[in-house]
């Protein structure tokens, strides 16, 4: 019961701050709202008995990604944007479509049910969540784990390749 109360508190704050992320006028404010959202998600992970994911969420998203993001915002000097400028005539169709999608999704989620509780992991195993994750990652999911290293490599090379080409363009001007 208590858990549910906390779940609703965290998720309502997460949703409100997520909406603020996209409606805030300055990019810095958006970034801070995003930090709040990510923290709430981390709290929900703890409610789900997954302290490891919560810690990773805080370290990587809040710690690393958001700091980089704020640096980028400050270096690029992104000005205040008006929300109205992004409202096109398309939103007349898009907003009802999204609302219908969410209502249908919510209905289906409420009506549906888990076939398997905890996906085959007993409560005792979940208490050692980092051990479970580590064993799964280097056991059953070893192959995709290795593939992710290629994905990271290509992201690195791609970013450098595109940015270096951009600099050549500046030189020509």
């Amino acid at each position, binding site marked *: 019961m208590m858990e549910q109360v906390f779940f609703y508190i965290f998720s309502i704050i997460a949703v409100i701050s997520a909406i603020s992320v996209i409606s805030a006028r300055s990019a810095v404010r958006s970034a801070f709202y995003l930090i709040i959202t990510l923290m709430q998600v981390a709290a929900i992970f703890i409610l789900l008995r997954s302290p490891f994911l919560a810690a990773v969420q805080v370290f990587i998203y809040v710690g690393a990604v958001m700091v980089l993001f704020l640096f980028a915002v400050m270096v690029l000097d992104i000005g205040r944007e008006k929300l109205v400028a992004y409202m096109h005539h398309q939103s007349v169709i898009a907003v009802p479509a999204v609302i219908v999608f969410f209502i249908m999704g919510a209905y289906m989620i409420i009506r*549906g049910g*888990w*076939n*398997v509780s905890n996906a085959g992991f007993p409560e005792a195993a979940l208490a050692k969540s980092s051990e479970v994750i580590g064993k799964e990652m280097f056991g059953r*999911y*070893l192959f995709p784990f290795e*593939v992710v290293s*290629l994905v990271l490599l*290509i992201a690195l090379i791609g970013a450098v390749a595109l940015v270096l080409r*951009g600099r050549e363009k500046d030189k020509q001007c």
Partner: protein
Amino acid sequence: MTNLLNINYYAVAPELVLIGFAFLVLILDLLLKGRDKAVLGYVTAFGLLVSIPVSYFTNEPVSFSGMVAADSFSAFFNIVFCVAAFLTTLISMDYMKKAKADRGEYYYITLFAVIGMMLMASANDFVNLYAGLELMALSFYVLVAFKINDNKSVEGALKYFVLGALSSGILLYGISFLYGYAGSTNFAEIARAASAGSSQNMFLILGVCLTVAGFAFKVALFPFHLWSPDAYEGAPTPVTALLSVGSKAAAFAVFLRFFAGSLAVLQPHWAMLIWVFSAATMLYGSVVGVSQKNIVRMLAYSSIAHAGIILIGLLVTNDKGSSGVLYYLLVYAFMNIGAFSVITLFVRNNGKGANICDYKGLASKRPWLAFFMALFMVSLAGIPPTGGFTAKFFILASAVNSRYYLLAGIAVVSTVISLFFYAKVIFYMYMKEADDASVFTASPGAALYNVVIVISAVATVLIGIFPSVFMDMAVQAVKPLLM
């Protein structure tokens, strides 16, 4: 422990070969600082050639604790990917030099994209599938933006990137519901849960709908196609050829393995969804294609229409339909890359040749080139004796066999409409006179284009004349799927 993990290097041999070549090209690129990068193209092409027999002899249905299914199905797709990438690499060496985007990164990023496609084709688990999908998608985002000084290229890449990231999110959301339904991300486990549990489970329906949406984006089905004309037009033309053939084939491989393979028992339930997608995509692609002036955009819409027709084969969940899809994708790879090679030969001269009317009078100046272009157009339209005709025939025959009469009718209507814009290119080439004949003079470095065009043309016609050989291959390939 090794037995439990079931690490099997033979199962991923084609991928390993290509990864090796990708790193070789990466290092060679550093050694060749500031010199001609064309040699990297030859190394890349050689690597892709080596990978074809390796793919052919790979047959390890279960490995990496059920993650990878390197069976005859994935072997067929791997060969299609390698052939497509081989042909596009050959035409890109000269193109990239002319586009002043001649950088070594291009070649090994292409290889990584092919590795991603292979991983998708052999994935038997959503986690593995998603890793392959992201590898392919990230490589293509970079490749589409490769002409970074060209605003159209950047615009196309940005649209592709933003919508691609969104579709990945939708796909992951769907996967999470399927995991909630089955308690596993493995295709075999989901199949077991689906055949045991009730088909009316909301999590299953929601998961299937969202994953279909995610893959519909990659295949560019009707409501999810918005990125494709812009990305196709902006990307370097050889990349467009690979994108339209490879990325589409990879997504269809997943569609087939998951829907025709794992969820075959639930076919009556998801059939309606795919039916609507298929009909809408065929009609939309062919109708909008008619009004296009730019030839690459026209081919983008033609590619959308083709995806709709291929989807019929997916809907018919038996060996006829599934092998029809494989056959269609094989033919489509050759005829589409052939058409794009002819376009690449022209577009490289500063925008000239981007419009259909630029092909005016090609037949009188370069009769052979016009003949091959006409052949590819005829094949894309689906007229005998080309492969395009037999491919459409197999798909439609399987649809009629399984009593999808209305859908087959829509496919015929869409084919007739699309005939109009394919014929328009032929009409301009043969019936009109050129305003300025100097556009058509042969430029140096065209030899490789000619090789690619001739290979594609010969393959298109051969597959059309001897369909049984290739159909047998396709039937063999889908066997492990439909057990």
